[in-house]
């Protein structure tokens, strides 16, 4: 498989607009695949896709554009059975009540990084990706919406659910209602 005929100039543009986000791409790939080698493969595949479709890039936000490619490549792999994804049964059990507790407060000051990492890995992919993009990559809602191809309102509700699930796991309360 070969890309289209490309020029030195195009490569330079690509190197300044997209390549700086290699770390961001790898971080997302790593959290999505939960495997170092799969993540490296996914990033290589995504960079090639990005180079191929670079002409369709309008030049505003290389980070969101590249991350969207990584994300799409990941879900394409999952569909082809080359990746694993936790299915999300969208029932009340899963969603539960993840509002902030009204009276009790659980303290997160002494949270262990390893526990937090495991809890993130345990989230279904659609929740994992928003949490990683927001809390670790520091993307604003608008960019998360762009990467995941969802409205900002959905970004907010998924984030709320993701955070709720994380807190419950970290509190060791399983699926118990708050």
């Amino acid at each position, binding site marked *: 498989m070969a890309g289209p005929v490309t020029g030195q100039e195009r490569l330079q543009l690509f190197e300044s607009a997209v390549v700086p986000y290699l770390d961001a791409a*790898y971080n997302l790939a*790593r959290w999505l695949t939960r495997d170092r080698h799969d993540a490296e493969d996914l990033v290589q595949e995504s960079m090639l896709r990005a180079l191929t479709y670079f002409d369709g890039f309008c030049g505003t936000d290389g980070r969101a554009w590249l991350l969207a490619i990584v994300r799409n490549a990941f879900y394409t792999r999952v569909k082809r059975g080359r990746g694993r994804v936790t299915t999300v049964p969208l029932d009340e059990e899963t969603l539960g009540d993840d509002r902030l507790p009204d009276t009790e407060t659980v303290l997160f000051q002494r949270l262990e990084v390893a526990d*937090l990492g495991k809890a993130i890995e345990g989230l279904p992919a659609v929740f994992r990706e928003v949490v990683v993009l927001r809390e670790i990559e520091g993307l604003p809602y608008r960019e998360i919406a762009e990467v995941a191809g969802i409205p900002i309102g959905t970004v907010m509700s998924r984030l709320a659910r993701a955070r709720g699930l994380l807190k419950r796991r970290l509190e060791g309360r399983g699926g118990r209602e708050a």
Partner: protein
Amino acid sequence: MTCKQLRAAIPAYLDGELDPSPNIEIERHLASCAECASIAANERAFRAAFHTPALRFAAPPELAGRVGELLRSRTIVAPAPRARSWQWLAVAASLVIAAAAGSLVTRVALAPSPTRLLAGEVLSGHLRAVAGDHPADVVSTDQHTVKPWFAGKVEFSPTVTDLAAEGFPLAGGRLEVVDGRRVAALVYHRRLHVISLYTWPVANGDDNAPVATTESGYNLVRWTRAGMGYWAVSDLDRQELARFAQLLSRGR
């Protein structure tokens, strides 16, 4: 603002996604309501827990290197002025042959630069000539006209073989610069396709069988024979170009 409203707004507030005016209201409320303030503080601590380098995976350095190689290999690079030895080509070619024996397709795609750079130069020369509608400086189907034309233009006498009987008629020749030196490019036709055959003397005298690669959708085949290195490049399909290479590499 009620406590209920405030608690609903805390996530967006802490994410820095609220307009400035609600921020003032929230801050006023938090300053006066201990219960809400403690919820907000706890929520802030939860988010702070993510802010550690331990949770952000940086791309391994070798991945960055491979991606760089990959991008360059998919890009036609202008001829580099630096001189390079054919020795590299022989080494790279043997690597490719070894890799092709296994199923190391990715390794081949990621093969290191000297061969790739040469391939890029050879292909750009071919594309310039074809796009400029000027594939040959000397236009002739006669090998006895084409061969002497190179005398004094390059420091060697290229072997010029007419393959008209096999369906690859000679069309001429032109001068090219590859790897910082002047080389001979012979032009052949196959139906409506143009084939450029680059040739120049190699330091390593060993013969190498043809190795095919694809670069930006073009097929390239390279081999060495009798102290000369050859690169054939064309938009012709791979098998036909391989046949062309076989005819020449066997010698007639």
